[in-house]
């Protein structure tokens, strides 16, 4: 049923039946390296192009997620998936062979939240027993599309983030597991007029602040009601801005906030500047690090808030601002 202004509280909460994460070499060498299901040391994943490599990651992540739950692809009713590339080709070409009816999504780096929200709504509404939510990003394909060729010589600003090569797939369904999605808060597009696409944390922080505040109000909760509030890829710059914005709203989330973009790489050793980013960042960290903690009951309830910077190379060249969006997913141990 609807909850507050932007949220839904499920009467029959769907379960996260299983999930899988597939990442590249650099992510495998990072602090969470051992937790991912699959680490490929060759960033082309045996393919010829970055785009095909990204598709392969999505395919592998879906296969792993379905395999873990012993669910056949025929049993998955709908697939919700998206990525950062133009027209979402990484997803289309990656999941094509499964033949699962699918919805292609774009929410920039918040796509994992968008996919999980729609998948859980569909299960809760009784439109199917299992839904698959999948998303990915690849450093090579993202740099090529949004910035420069990989071997171009330039200096990245300290606010720049490193696109995660990774994919996360989540099987949401009616079959019992130890994690359920009890509610969602759908985010608004929030634009503070910033135009610097090399400082995405600052572009997305206002959206994260808005969604977190909305979620707390809609559900009548305090930050302490969540074991953790987990943003997707605000990075170091974005996190400090988020804290300031939340302080302005008189909400203190400093104690229990973590950010996937800050966890996936070692900022000092891996030269990733402000942290990781990309759809694959939040998705792979959710699957490898957050969900296991919920399954074991170490955390009782978390708010997962993947954040997206909504821009294209055209909008950037035309001087448009970079608005942000963030979706809130409430995950609980059960």
């Amino acid at each position: 049923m609807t909850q507050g202004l932007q949220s839904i509280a499920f009467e029959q909460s769907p379960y996260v039946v299983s999930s899988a994460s597939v990442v590249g070499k650099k992510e495998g060498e990072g602090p969470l390296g051992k937790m991912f299901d699959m680490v490929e040391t060759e960033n082309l994943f045996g393919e010829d192009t970055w785009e095909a490599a990204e598709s392969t990651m999505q395919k592998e992540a879906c296969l792993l997620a379905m395999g873990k739950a012993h669910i056949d692809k025929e049993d998955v009713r709908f697939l919700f998936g998206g990525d950062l590339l133009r027209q979402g080709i990484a997803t289309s070409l990656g999941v094509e062979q499964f033949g699962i009816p699918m919805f292609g999504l774009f929410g920039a780096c918040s796509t994992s939240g968008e996919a999980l929200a729609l998948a859980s709504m569909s299960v809760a509404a009784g439109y199917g027993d299992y839904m698959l939510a999948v998303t990915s990003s690849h450093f090579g394909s993202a740099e090529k599309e949004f910035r420069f060729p990989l071997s171009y010589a330039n200096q990245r600003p300290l606010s720049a983030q490193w696109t995660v090569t990774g994919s996360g797939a989540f099987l949401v369904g009616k079959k019992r597991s130890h994690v359920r999605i009890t509610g969602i808060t759908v985010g608004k597009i929030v634009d503070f007029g910033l135009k610097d696409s090399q400082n995405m944390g600052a572009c997305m922080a206002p959206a994260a602040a808005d969604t977190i505040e909305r979620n707390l109000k809609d559900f009548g909760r305090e930050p302490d009601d969540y074991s953790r509030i987990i943003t997707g890829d605000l990075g170091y710059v974005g996190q400090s801005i988020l804290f300031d914005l939340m302080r302005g709203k008189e909400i203190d989330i400093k104690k229990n906030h973590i950010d996937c973009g800050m966890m996936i790489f070692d900022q000092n050793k891996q030269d990733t500047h402000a942290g990781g980013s990309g759809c694959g960042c939040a998705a792979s960290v959710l699957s490898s690090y957050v969900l296991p903690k919920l399954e074991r009951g170490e955390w009782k309830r978390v708010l997962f808030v993947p954040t997206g910077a909504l821009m294209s190379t055209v909008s950037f060249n035309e001087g448009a601002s970079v608005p942000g969006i963030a979706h809130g997913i409430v995950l609980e141990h059960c």
Partner: protein
Amino acid sequence: MRLAGADSNTESLEGEGRVDRKKQQEAYENYVKRKTPVHNLPANMTKAFITGGIICVIGQSILNYCEKIGLDKDISGGWTSMILILLSVILTALNVYPRIAKWGGAGALVPITGFANSVAAPAIEFQKEGQVMGIGCKIFTIAGPVILYGVFTSWVLGFLYWIGKIAGLL
């Protein structure tokens, strides 16, 4: 959004709203500027000086050698540029040049080696998209503006030089 027939009062309020929004955006931009760490300028300039200096020393050595073995000045200059470009392209292919530029910044970007890198890098990246639509169309995506405005500027200067000559100023 303004509705037809809305009274002037609403309009002025909307106008104020727009100004407020602009002010808020500026305030946020300034705040973000304060919050965002930047590279240390003196350190970066020193590194650029060293890197650019070394590239120029290499260029000068090639030039001196060419002249020493008896080539004339223009041909020596040609050889110098070509060898520097070749070195840069090879280092780009080996993924070494980006590392030099990461440390040396503008010191590696401004000399002809940086220009060569900016042509070689797209050629490598877009090769997968084919000889025509890939390399052909995209090889100058970074260097293109430099070439266009470089040629245009020399045309303007040439024109001024020509006018100056006619007017007897030069």
